[in-house]
């Protein structure tokens, strides 16, 4: 008998969905190519890499589970301060271990707060996520003897990665390091969302009542994905601190959470690449805007928000599909994003 008969229908289906496509290989080859093409812009590329990871973390809860969060920076901040404090007090010097530790700290916070988030209405969910981020910012501000308060946490150095690769001022190590972390966590997330677990998340997102009726433990699924997402955000924050050797109060800021929403919306949620593409576009936009008007680039970012909503994301997606480079997505990558036009509109 062939292999297909030994697989259960679910396994066969997830294997089909999760098959690695050539477009994805091409995408990651582009990422590798960027190392050689933009060798004078490593610092920006590094920022894009951790921003992409951060957006990936939001994609897990927003794109797949449908939880709108206004305070995802909370976990980013915990990761950032976590890694900074570990380095400053010499508890864990090695960056990769510190990264995991900081991710775990954010994960614990994510697990604890997930119980608050799954409860309540949509509106109170927005409030609770926003409130948690503000609360942490306030804590970091008040306990200035630990966190450095308003001035931020400074005066620590990050040890070489794995004891071998020193962080250099051009950001070459930082970029490679962030990209490798992004890639590894991306693979894990890809595995996760294409598993039966990921499918059940989509079921919850599409119709919570129906998902409950067919026996999916909705609350437990949401808690689990929120916790994982917090880990990802924590790692992104840790990467931020490790590559900049700085953690300041603005890691918790509302603007950071808001920008993150924008990034995911630009890239599109629910197919994992959206966060990365969004991060690239966002950073380019930011560069352009701040070169035109350094002080007022917030205005232009705001305008992007407004235009995206007014034009409508569904319509933009249709336009984007006409463009050649996004043709790739149409050929297969956009399964999650394109699947079911009405859901796609709501992300």
């Amino acid at each position, binding site marked *: 008998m062939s292999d297909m008969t030994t697989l259960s229908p679910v396994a066969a289906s997830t294997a089909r969905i999760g098959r690695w496509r050539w477009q994805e290989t091409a995408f990651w080859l582009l990422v590798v190519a960027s190392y050689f093409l933009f060798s004078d812009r490593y610092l920006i590329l590094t920022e894009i890499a951790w921003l992409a990871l951060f957006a990936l973390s939001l994609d897990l809860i927003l794109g797949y589970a449908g939880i709108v969060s206004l305070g995802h920076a909370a976990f980013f901040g915990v990761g950032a301060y976590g890694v900074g404090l570990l380095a400053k007090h010499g508890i864990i010097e090695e960056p990769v271990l510190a990264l995991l530790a900081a991710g775990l700290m954010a994960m614990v916070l994510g697990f604890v707060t997930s119980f608050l988030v799954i409860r309540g209405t949509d509106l109170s969910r927005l409030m609770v996520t926003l409130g948690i981020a503000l609360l942490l910012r306030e804590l970091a501000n008040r306990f200035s003897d630990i966190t450095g308060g308003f001035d931020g946490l400074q005066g620590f150095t990050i040890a070489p990665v794995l004891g071998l690769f020193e962080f250099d001022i051009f950001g070459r190590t930082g970029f490679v390091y962030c990209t490798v972390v992004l890639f590894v966590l991306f693979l894990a997330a890809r595995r996760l969302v294409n598993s039966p677990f990921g499918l059940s998340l989509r079921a919850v997102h599409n119709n919570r009542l129906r998902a409950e009726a067919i026996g999916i433990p909705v609350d437990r699924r949401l808690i689990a994905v929120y916790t994982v997402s917090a880990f990802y955000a924590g790692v992104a924050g840790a990467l931020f601190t490790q590559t900049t050797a700085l953690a300041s109060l603005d890691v918790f800021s509302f603007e950071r959470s808001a920008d993150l929403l924008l990034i995911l919306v630009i890239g599109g949620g629910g197919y994992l690449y959206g966060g990365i593409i969004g991060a690239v576009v966002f950073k380019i936009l930011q560069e352009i805007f701040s070169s035109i008007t350094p002080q*007022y680039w917030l205005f232009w970012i705001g305008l992007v928000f407004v235009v995206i909503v007014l034009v409508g994301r569904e319509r933009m997606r249709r336009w984007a599909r006409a463009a050649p480079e996004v043709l790739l997505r149409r050929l297969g990558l956009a399964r999650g994003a394109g699947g079911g036009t009405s859901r796609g509109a709501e992300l």
Partner: protein
Amino acid sequence: MTNFLTILFDGVAYGMLLFVLASGLAVTLGLMNFVNLAHGAFAAFGGYVCAVLVNRSGVPFFVALPLAFAAAALAGVVAERTLFRHLYRRSELEQVLFTIGFVFMAVAATDYVMGSSQVFINLPDVLQGQIDLFGVGIGRYRLMIIVICGLLTLAIQGTLARTRFGARLRAAVDDPRVASGLGINVPQVFAFTFAFGCGLAGLGGALGAEILGLDPYFPLKFLIYFLIVVTVGGSSTITGPFMAALVLGIADVAGKYYVPKLGAFVIYALMIVILIWRPHGLFGRTMAR
């Protein structure tokens, strides 16, 4: 003891100010289910209009207040008719995105036009200093705030509960389709309500410039406070947000005085606890939809 009473008084003034600032949001967010994170932008607009009128044109403060109301209401009606109207039926995420964008643009535009530093409104002498009442020091400015905001609260409550317009609004909110079937011009009712709420926010911004401080980031800084008032207060009545605003004002002033180390921490923690305990707000009903 007298110290305690002064704090209580300041807290009440602060709370009433927050109520006037957030009451428009209570209607749009609580009743119309429109997540408007840009509400503070209209408050800041009113505040800046008042500041420009008083400081540059020499308009008397008490004349500038209604003008700030009118300007913010006008800005509200323009924004509602051209932009926000299209979003009532959109998903929550899109409302969030749009209004965040709007508030970002407002912040940057204010920065561009008015500069980034904090703006103070020159107050008339009548409003400066304190009155000594039974040994309790009472700031004149705060007394004025309590009087104005108290009257406004009564007016809002009366309008919603007793007038024909209030009945139309409640009907339009409960079931827009049936309401329009009965001949109520629902979009008009919403536009008017939105404008009035923005006007109130503008008035609140003008009144609050002295106490809250007015700078371009005002809409973002106080966003959480407005949202707390509405979500903690619940959306079924206007009394709920009023009580929530009072509690918030008193807790904030008292917290800053007695436990300065914790700062706003108490407020946020309290909000989260209340929302966990009662997701529809302290005074809310369970919404059918």
